Structures are given as structure tokens and as C-alpha cells.
């Protein structure tokens, strides 16, 4: 990123204008913002970008600064505008001297303990059926997994793929719950 660009700090007014452009409803606009950011990060990571969050945030900042100019005339899916800007930012990022990759961190002991504790709490928040399903779904190792999941699917009266989707949705809820729990525990 050029230094001149980095020095530009996104103003609150620009950010608000971005959210309004995404959706006049503030709540939905916030969700849209998070979703776009996640998708940008997913794409950048898939491209092998070592700093996907940084490049995604820079992309959003640049779009926010341009919203005043484009909001009246832009036609089409707004997400695609982010993609075009992201390609430029990523291109600039690739021209920068590559930073040495930091060695992989060992799983921090405290974070691990916190995650375990939060998992227990979040499991308690699940509906009994969901908890039962997730406990059984994640119980088997590779060897027994296929057979076990067939049995679980039969018990729940669903197909294997439906079982997988149900389990992953519960898993997604657990992920969100655990991340919030850890954040609360940390602060």
C-alpha cells in the first residue's frame, strides 16, 4: 500500500455513508458489511494472500471513500464493486516486498483452556436434540466416522447430507457462541 494512502484514515462520515449505500436499514447494512468483508477475506486467503484482513480492510476503506462519488450512478451488484477495488489493492500488495512469514504459533495454552471452558458453556445452551446430535457427530475418529454417521442419520431419520448440514449449522452456532464467550472472558 502506498504510504500516502495508508495515512488516510477513514472518517466516520465516510463509513456511515458506506453502510447507508449498502442498505438504508442500519442493522441489515451492518450484516452486509460483515458478510462482504468475510467474502473478501475468503477470496484473498484462497489467493494465498498473507494479510487477507489487512487487504480486505483497505479495500473497504477505499470503497467507503468513493461512495460519495458513485452512489448516485452505480448500477449493478454492489459487492462486485468491492471485488474490482480489491483486485487493485491486492495487486498493489503483491508489489510490496514480501514479509517473512511468522512461524506458526503453538496453540496458546490459555486460549485453549478458554475455548474448552466456553465449549462447555455453549454446549449447555444448545437444544437437547442439537447437543445429542453434535456429541455423536463429533465422537468418532476417521475409521469409525462413516459408519457412525450412517447410524446417526438413520436414528434421526434423515439422509447423510442432511445430517452433515445440520451438524455443521450447529457447529457454526457453537463457533459464534465460543468466540463471543472467549471475547467476554478475555475482557
Amino acid at each position, binding site marked *: 500500500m502506498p504510504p500516502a494512502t495508508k495515512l488516510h484514515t477513514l472518517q466516520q462520515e465516510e463509513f456511515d455513508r458506506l453502510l447507508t449505500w*449498502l*442498505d438504508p436499514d442500519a442493522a*441489515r447494512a451492518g*450484516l*452486509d458489511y460483515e*458478510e*462482504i468483508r*468475510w*467474502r*473478501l*477475506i*475468503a*477470496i484473498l*486467503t*484462497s*489467493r*494465498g*494472500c*498473507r494479510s*487477507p*484482513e489487512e487487504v480486505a480492510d483497505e479495500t473497504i476503506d477505499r470503497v467507503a471513500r468513493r461512495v460519495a462519488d458513485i452512489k448516485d450512478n452505480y448500477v449493478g*451488484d454492489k*459487492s*462486485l464493486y*468491492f*471485488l474490482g477495488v480489491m483486485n487493485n489493492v491486492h495487486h498493489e500488495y503483491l508489489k510490496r516486498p514480501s514479509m517473512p512469514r511468522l512461524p*506458526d504459533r503453538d*496453540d496458546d495454552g490459555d*486460549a*485453549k483452556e478458554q*475455548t*474448552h471452558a466456553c*465449549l*462447555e458453556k455453549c454446549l449447555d445452551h444448545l437444544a437437547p436434540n442439537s447437543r445429542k446430535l453434535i*456429541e455423536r457427530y*463429533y*465422537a*468418532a*475418529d*476417521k*475409521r469409525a*466416522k462413516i459408519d457412525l454417521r450412517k447410524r446417526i442419520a438413520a436414528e434421526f431419520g434423515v439422509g447423510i447430507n442432511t445430517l*452433515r*448440514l445440520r451438524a*455443521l*449449522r450447529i*457447529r*457454526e452456532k*457453537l*463457533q459464534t457462541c*465460543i*468466540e463471543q464467550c*472467549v471475547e467476554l472472558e478475555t475482557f
Partner: protein
Amino acid sequence: MASNNGQFEQANSSGFPDEMIRRFLLGDLNATERPVFEQRLLVDDALAARVRLAELELADDYAYRQLSNAERELFTEKFLLSADRERKVRVSRSLRDHFAPAAVAGGSAAYINRLRAVFGVSQLAWRFAFAVVVLLLLFGAALLVIKEPRLARQITNSIVPRRRLAPSVPHEASHSNNTSAPEHQTTPSPMPVHDQTAASPLIVSVALLPMASSPGDATPWISLPKGVEDIARLQLAVKPDQLGPYRAELLTSERQPVLSGELIKAPDNGAQVNFDVPARLLKSGDYQIRLSRDNAGANENLGSYYFRVQ
């Protein structure tokens, strides 16, 4: 834009198979697939929802060690690049530790343990199998020795210096008319000198003393080797003053000539004459050797030697 799980069930019709989503997450799409997928991901909520779940599933598979080596490499190089994904993997590990502690040891370790369980010597079945194998080997070796005497002799020769007791010989009484069993003097024959390499013929030696007549049951015997090149070495004892060269004639018990040898010389010690007979010329039965020498132009008979082929 927000994730809509209600649309997720219809997502499989979006044209991107699960396998392609997985390759996207592992950074393994080709240049043609990538721009199409990226553009679709930004505008397709159903596809985005599938990618989210696939992301969690991939993190779980990593924690449960269910990825191939190539996938694990891509996972660490191309997937595990954001803090968000690190948090996902941390939760996956926590799930694994909580629900499947048996999988904590890891796939490879678990595999090794399973192998140990199957092939471990502590298993009664394997102990029994090992015992049977050992017994079979012993039985086979014994059978081989019995069925292949030549091999047995080779083994024996390579371990123990081969000595054969000299046949008994009557003392002076042997020249008498005494019909009782003669006393025997056992004289170990000297070690045969021969090449013991596998390619050289086998030499079986027997030491013989001159006798006036066949000693009957006391006749020294020889067990013949079976090879066409093998040799029966007949070591004929002579008096020190009976110098050579010698002439030897091998006869059957019916006095039929089998082989004769001329100008045979005694070894340096002069106490015996080695008469080598190709084993293939001998059959089971009794044989006689007449030994003589040229003494001042006259043929001097030095004695007869008797042996039996078994």
C-alpha cells in the same frame, strides 16, 4: 447479503460442487475457475453459506487428522492464513478433545497402535503361529538332512574334521587259521586334503590295512557320495620300507577288474598310498584292492585291501 440458511438446501444447484468449494478454500482452483468462483461468491448468498460450512468442516477434518498429506500442506499454506480461521481450528481441536479423545493421538499413531494390536506378539494367536513356524523349520531341516545325505556330509565336514576309523586288522593272528573275530586296531585316518568349495568334487576317504582275506562282517565300509565327480579315496597302509611307485587294481568280490592305477606315489610320510576311485564306478557290494610295486624289475605284491560299499 447476510447468510441465509434457508437457501442453503437449494445451494447444490448453484453449479459449484462441494469438491470445488474445498479446492477454493485450499487455494487449489485453476486460473479459469478462480475468477468465476470469486465473482459468484460475492453475489451468491447460498454459495457463501456453503463456503462457510465447508470452512468449518475443513477445520474439523484438519483437527481430526482426516486430510491427506497434500491437503494438510495446502491447509497450512493456503487456508490457515487468517485469525478467523485459526479460531475455527482452535474450536475444532476443542471439539475433538472433548468428544473424540481417542482421535487425539492422531491418525498415524492410532494406525500404528492398531497394527500393534493386530500383529503384537502378545496375541495368543501370533504366539502359536510363531511356535508352529519354528517347529516347521526344525522339521524341514531334519527332513532335508535325512533325504540329502550329501548335504549332511557337507555340513558335517564344514563343522567337524572328518575322520573315519580305520578298519580293524588282525594282528599277526590274522595270518593264522584263527576263525574267531579278529581284534581290531583303530587307527584314525589322516584328514583328507581337498578343496571344500562348492564346485569341487566331494572326497570320501577310508583307511584300509592289508589283509590276507576278506574280514567278513568286519570289512570297513564306505558310504558313497552321489555326485558324478565325487571320489572315494582309499588310503592304503604300507610299510615304510615299501617304497613306490605302486600299482593298484580294484576288483569286485567276483574278481572282476573295475579300475587300475599305475605309478601311484605315496605322500611324503610314506605310510599310506592314496588310491582315488571315481565314486560313479562303485556300487553296493564288496571290493578288493591289490597293491603291488615294481621291485628290481619284478612285480612285488604288497597286499590286498578289502572294503564294502553301502
